[in-house]
């Protein structure tokens, strides 16, 4: 029983990380309608930036905030300089995918070039202790991750549902042409969407590196598959779906790895994929995704 609860906690903690990166994916998808393959590597860059600030003596919370700010700007610039010139997603989807693949390769190597390929120590954002609840102990780190994610979701909800800016983002995601006719400055909204995603990615990256206490230039490529799985499961246009999807993927992988003998730890990812396939066959738009309205 103890082992089971421990596994649940670990699954949820890892799932929260997957969910937070998936959240960044979803934010870009919501505003631009396509998937950013470079999301993980953007988060990698931001996290190294956070590390660098921290290494320079900035307190970790301030370092994360600073990195989120820089990432927001960088994300907006990337949209303006690298993405927009390629064209819109309806006509140049493939070209956009390749641009993000190019960014993935370039950013990863750039990080290696600037900071080297050796691993780095990353501080525990929420300290190293644990809270004991009955027979289960939960680390401050896990609790902190859950809390940050909950607050983030709440803020995003307020942003999207309660502000003009959020409304504009959602309008542009659904129909850019009509939005611009209504007076929304589509270009700025897209830049905002990318900036927001990059900032959330920076936060997710810090949570992840903090969970590992480590950082090197490979960890986000590994994470990206899980984040994709989380976003796919939850539905690519739903922030709540991304987080729930992340938690489910985390739980399924840990429990399948622990309890399903023929899968084992080495094939647990396959279990997660199987769950996603089944969900998609029943709901092709993911658990929380909205069904795409087909336009003829």
């Amino acid at each position: 029983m103890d082992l089971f609860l421990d596994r649940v906690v670990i699954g949820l903690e890892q799932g929260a990380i997957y969910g937070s990166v998936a959240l960044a994916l979803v934010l870009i998808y919501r505003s631009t309608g396509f998937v950013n393959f470079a999301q993980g590597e953007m988060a990698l860059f931001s996290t190294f930036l956070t590390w660098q600030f921290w290494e320079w003596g900035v307190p970790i919370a301030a370092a994360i905030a600073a990195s989120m700010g820089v990432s927001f700007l960088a994300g907006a610039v990337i949209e303006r300089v690298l993405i927009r010139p390629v064209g819109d997603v309806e006509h140049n989807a493939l070209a956009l995918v390749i641009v993000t693949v190019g960014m993935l390769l370039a950013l990863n190597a750039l990080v290696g070039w600037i900071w080297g390929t050796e691993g780095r120590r990353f501080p525990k954002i929420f300290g190293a202790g644990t809270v004991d609840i009955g027979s289960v102990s939960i680390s401050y780190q896990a609790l902190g991750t859950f809390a940050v994610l909950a607050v983030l979701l709440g803020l995003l909800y307020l942003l999207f549902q309660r502000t003009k800016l959020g409304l504009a983002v959602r309008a542009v995601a659904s129909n850019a042409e009509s939005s611009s006719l209504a007076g929304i400055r589509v270009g700025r909204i897209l830049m905002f969407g990318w900036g927001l995603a990059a900032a959330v990615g920076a936060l997710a990256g810090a949570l992840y590196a903090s969970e590992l206490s480590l950082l090197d230039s490979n960890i986000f490529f590994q994470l990206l598959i899980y984040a994709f799985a989380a976003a796919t499961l939850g539905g690519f246009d739903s922030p709540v779906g991304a987080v729930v999807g992340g938690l489910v993927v985390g739980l399924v992988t840990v429990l399948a790895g622990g309890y399903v003998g023929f899968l084992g730890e080495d094939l647990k990812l396959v279990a997660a994929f199987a769950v996603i396939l089944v969900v998609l066959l029943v709901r092709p738009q993911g658990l929380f995704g909205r069904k795409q309205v087909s336009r003829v």
Partner: protein
Amino acid sequence: MSHLLEARALTGGYGPVQVLRGLDFHVDAGEVVVILGANGAGKTTTLRALSGMIPARGEVVFDGRSIIGRRPEAIVRFGIAHVPQGRGTIADLTVEENLRVGAIIRRDREVGADIDRWYEMFPRLAERRDQAAGSMSGGEQQMLAIARALMCRPRLLLLDEPSLGLAPLVTREVFERLAHVNRELGTTVLVVEQNANLALEIADRGYVLEAGLIAASGRADELASDESVRKAYLGY
């Protein structure tokens, strides 16, 4: 020379292809003007050129100010609202959110009151205020699109084929509402339409486009009775 909108030698098109080959036309305040023409004559392109959706050249003066070469989000701020072909509602947003998007450039506090006004005028929208726009019928979406465009309190409304894909009865209803808006609010309307009969009924004046040039123009009743126009566009 106090036309609300005046276009001179307007050209424009897609990439290397010129569709409009030099149009001169005007719209006066309070009018309903219709642009008729066959498929591919350049009707939609004309509206897109006016609202800045495609690069255009020539001269377009709206209320004394040149708007040529501006981007759509700037032009709407001059007071020109464009309901594009295929309705142009924002499918994933609810009816109410669509209306709020329509008012997104406004900074006054009367947005809520305006929304209520449109709910009054289009009761069907009020019933469906929390429903996603994309899930509504074609006629409802068309009305929403018009209401959304009017939310920015435009002085000129550009309408692109509002009858497209609608049943005749629904089309008639849409046009009646349009006439009503024009009468009640004094909103000037420039409408592109294939269904010339209906359009000419509510219009004051009209232009006929052929291959990117104006082939005929005149008062609506004159056009409706013109032999060649009747044969070509009215089908009787």
